[in-house]
């Protein structure tokens, strides 16, 4: 049988999926053991026990200076910025995406601007944001918005243009006005695309969030990593990186699930990641 037609059974799929994870952990364990055999105080590849201890320290022991549980404070601060930033970006994407996708006039008006804007490397806007908005929350949220909105706007505009023309014409023959068509034909089909756009946008969103936090912040996951970097505290950095990854993964899966739950019709044909 051709490889393209050979599908793994369910247990095999789980085992195959786990294999790269297992190999990565194994490679780390071996590397760490070798280094620590040479130098028991090695900081670069700390043992799993050391990582676990540092992580539980961050999560379950109150900070001596502030009395805060740092992991949760950092997590909450970062997720709040991410959520507000993505909410603003999603709103902009929806409104401008609709204007661009539905109305030829809106397309002529906004499409070149959005295309040009999306080519600005967002991180270069950060100093401007700091100067204009100050070093507070607004600049960090602003960076997340600048870094994600243009691509989400374009994704949604394109999703509308990809709706077969036949449907639009059909709606016209059923007596729909432009507004009604938007409400009953286009917008309902756009929701799953919005969720997909948010999932895509979250990738750069995390990058820009961590960058902004690294530069100017007093709490947050990105702030913490770059703070402890000065002490080569790999036992904190590694679990933080894994924690961020886990959060990102959980959010992505939750959104994928949400889309399947709410918009089952959009997931009837084909496989989706």
């Amino acid at each position, binding site marked *: 049988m051709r490889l393209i037609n050979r599908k793994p059974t369910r247990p095999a799929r789980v085992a195959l999926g786990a294999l790269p994870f297992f190999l990565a952990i194994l490679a780390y364990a071996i590397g760490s053991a070798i280094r620590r055999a040479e130098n028991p105080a090695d900081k670069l590849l700390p043992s799993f026990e050391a990582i676990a201890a540092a992580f539980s320290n961050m999560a379950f022991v109150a900070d001596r200076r502030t009395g805060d549980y740092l992991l949760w404070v950092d997590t909450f601060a970062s997720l709040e910025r991410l959520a507000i930033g993505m909410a603003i970006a999603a709103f902009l994407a929806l409104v401008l995406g609709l204007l661009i996708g539905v109305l030829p006039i809106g397309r002529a008006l906004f499409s070149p601007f959005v295309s040009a804007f999306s080519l600005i490397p967002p991180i270069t806007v950060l100093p401007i944001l700091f100067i204009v908005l100050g070093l507070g929350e607004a600049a960090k949220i602003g960076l997340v918005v600048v870094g994600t909105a243009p691509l989400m706007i374009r994704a949604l505009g394109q999703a509308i243009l990809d709706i*077969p*023309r*036949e*449907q639009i*014409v*059909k*709606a*016209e*023959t*059923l*007596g*729909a*006005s432009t*507004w*009604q068509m938007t*409400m*009953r*034909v286009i917008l*309902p*089909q756009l929701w799953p695309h919005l969720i997909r756009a948010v999932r895509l946008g979250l990738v750069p969103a995390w990058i820009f969030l961590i960058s902004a936090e690294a530069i100017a912040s007093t709490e947050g996951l990105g702030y913490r990593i770059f703070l402890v970097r000065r002490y080569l505290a790999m036992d904190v950095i590694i679990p933080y990186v894994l924690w961020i990854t886990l959060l990102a993964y959980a959010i992505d899966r939750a959104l994928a699930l949400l889309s399947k739950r709410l*918009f*089952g*019709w*959009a997931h*009837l*044909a084909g496989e989706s990641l």
Partner: protein
Amino acid sequence: MSFVTARQIAVSYGDALILERVSLEVQKGAFVTIVGASGCGKSTFLRILLGQEQPSSGHVEIDGHPMAPEPDPERGVVFQKYSVFPHLTVLQNLMLPFELEGSAFLGRVFGARKREARDKAQAMMETIGLAHAAKRFPAQLSGGMQQRLAIGQALLKRPKIMLLDEPFGALDPGTRKDMQALLLELWRETGMTVFMVTHDIQEAFELGTRLLVFDKVRHDPQYPNAYGATVTYDLPLDHGERKKTAAIEAALIQSQTDKA
């Protein structure tokens, strides 16, 4: 007086002339079938009648008035595919026209008006034989069921003109027979004027009261785009006298197989 009148329609895309000198007078209630080589401009002609596109020159009149320059409920349409809404169930697809009618802002109705819309949709579901599939989405229907839904939906606003672009092209022969019967029945019931493009010449002869053949009359081998297609045969079909047209039918089928 003719109901649909096309006068000297020409359509070109860039340099390519697709249709030229298409003139036509069609009586109310006619069932016009349209055949012609693939790519010769049949769908383009339907889009003109629909108002989805404007001709490069010439114009169309309906009932003596210039046609609206965009699609409207006067003219229903069934495409080969993609003409039902994938995010709505069968029932919702059929309720939509009434909901749009009843609510300019939300396009949704509630309470008694919703029940009324549902009853009308229900009646259409019975007519097209989809009552058992009310809660299914289009992606969960077979090709034949999807087309039945598309036809039913297109009829809800009682259009005076129905445009069908190879509506049964993707269906198996058995389903196609059923669909043809359904379409004829609905046509007789509503008295609408039908334009139907098909690549099945037999189908065109069986269903139509009038047959149009689109083809290029002039051809320049140097510039294949220089001339457009026009109506080369315009044949009234009398179903009692099928023998009269049998020779032409055979010739058309022959020329189609020659090209293939």
